[in-house]
């Protein structure tokens, strides 16, 4: 009951927003133009029609596919290197101390400024976008895993050692699961950033992809096209996020407040 109620409200807010957009971009209220000039703001119906058309004609699929491939590569490569480095540094504090200032520096750098240099290095194809997404994903995962491994409960660790575990067993039964938790808590953000990297890269220079489509629409003042691209992007992010949540639920069943099966006896 409560869930349905909430859902009704959520849908209501969306519809109200669309209705307001529609009214203010089509009704003139006595002026020469509607308060939201459709040239700059488009109208919801146009955006929906355009989105529908681009899927129906099939021309969007190619762009969507390329953006998703870039996202997946950036995420996969970034997350795995992030895990490897996070682990390595957490278990070798000296190494971590030496590299600390450089890592901070690299992380402080706004990643967008790297896009031109990646473009030079990797060309206009997908790899310059993957590289940009990589720099975003890597640091999120890296910091989370690094933190996760270092903050393994000392009691759990001491207990595992008293059970006679060697380094390899400690890694498998203690460090790795601990790091995995933190990796997963950063996963939602990381996937989002992988997509951001791909789209921004495409926006700055590409011949295909959703970012390219949006840029193309923008350069001919086609606001409907820009909004349509944004709607598709948002939908993709939501779908990925739902999938992530499902994977996370599956892998982190042991965590408190994570599934309804939890009860105290």
């Amino acid at each position: 009951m409560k869930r349905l109620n909430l859902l009704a409200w959520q849908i209501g807010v969306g519809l109200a927003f669309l209705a307001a957009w529609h009214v203010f971009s089509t009704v003139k209220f006595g002026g020469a133009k509607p308060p939201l000039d459709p040239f700059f703001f488009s109208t919801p119906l146009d955006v929906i029609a355009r989105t529908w058309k681009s899927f129906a004609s099939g021309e969007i699929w190619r762009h969507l596919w390329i953006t998703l491939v870039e996202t997946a590569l950036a995420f996969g490569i970034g997350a795995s290197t992030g895990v490897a480095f996070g682990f390595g540094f957490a278990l070798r504090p000296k190494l971590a101390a030496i590299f600390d200032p450089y890592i901070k520096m690299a992380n402080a750098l706004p990643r967008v400024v790297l896009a031109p240099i990646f473009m030079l290095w990797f060309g206009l194809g997908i790899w310059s976008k993957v590289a940009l997404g990589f720099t975003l994903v890597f640091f999120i995962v890296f910091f989370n895993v690094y933190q996760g491994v270092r903050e393994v409960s000392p009691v759990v660790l001491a207990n595992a050692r008293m059970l006679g575990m060697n380094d390899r067993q400690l890694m498998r039964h203690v460090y790795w699961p601990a790091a995995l938790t933190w990796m997963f808590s950063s996963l939602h953000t990381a996937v989002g950033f992988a997509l951001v990297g791909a789209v921004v890269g495409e926006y700055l220079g590409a011949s295909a992809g959703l970012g390219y489509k949006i840029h193309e629409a923008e350069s001919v003042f086609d606001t409907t096209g820009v909004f349509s691209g944004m709607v598709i992007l948002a939908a993709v992010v939501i779908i990925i996020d739902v999938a992530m949540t499902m994977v996370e639920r599956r892998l982190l069943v042991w965590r408190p407040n994570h599934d309804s099966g939890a009860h105290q006896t």
Partner: protein
Amino acid sequence: MAAATPASGLRTEPAPALARNAVSLEGLAIAFALGSGGHYRAVEQIDLSVADGEFVAIVGPTGCGKSTLLNAAAGLLKPAEGRVGIYGEPLSGLNRRAGYLFQQDALMPWKTALANVAVALEPQGVGAAEAQERARQWLGRVGLSAFAERYPHMLSGGQRKRVALAQMLIRNPEILLMDEPFGPLDAQTRQIMGNLLLDLWAADRKAVMFVTHDLEEAIALSDRVVVMSAGPAARIVGDYSVPLARPRDIADIRLDKVFHEIQREIWATLKVEVQKAYAQGEGRA
């Protein structure tokens, strides 16, 4: 897998005084480095031995370094002075012959109760299937057969302690080190856990060092109660044997006359230290 404990007569070399004891602490002092550069001496001049099969409880005011002694016997802490002998051999590194029951939750939260117990056999090279089977038996022994697939957060505090107990005992360690294991539990659960511990222990009497701040619990469980002074630089100020018959029920035994006499006697010593510790605490605040 030789079940025989190293009998003193068979050995030629090691010090005979050490050989009979499961644990012997000699002239032990433990210090911690302080952030300010100085040292905090937690305990000093500790001479304590635990015979094979003996259940020794260590009581003392909070912060007196009781747990420090356990950690030294476990090899988790290096003493600043003195030596730790385990069955006559000087301890270096972790104490492989001891099991440790921590006060805090020490189970791996990402493993089920069953997996937590079974994993304790992995370092001994027991195969996964056999480890599972034996873990199931141990969960049965601690009364948790129905909870094998639960994760620690789905268990109550008392149930988690039972899993930890099974995890420690499944390895069949020769020495049990317990650091206020039932401290966080409520009074009734403590009694149930105490009786469970005594039952399991009676099966193959291992040497036990049991740290607690609860004098009644100490007397009810142990053969010997050791009293420590208030810290810093805590020492042993009393050593009392508990001549109560076994098997015991730790709820009933508290009504025994002898129990009260022992309690009165030990409390006379402990009270002074508790008051000292309390006064120090007030002074610091």
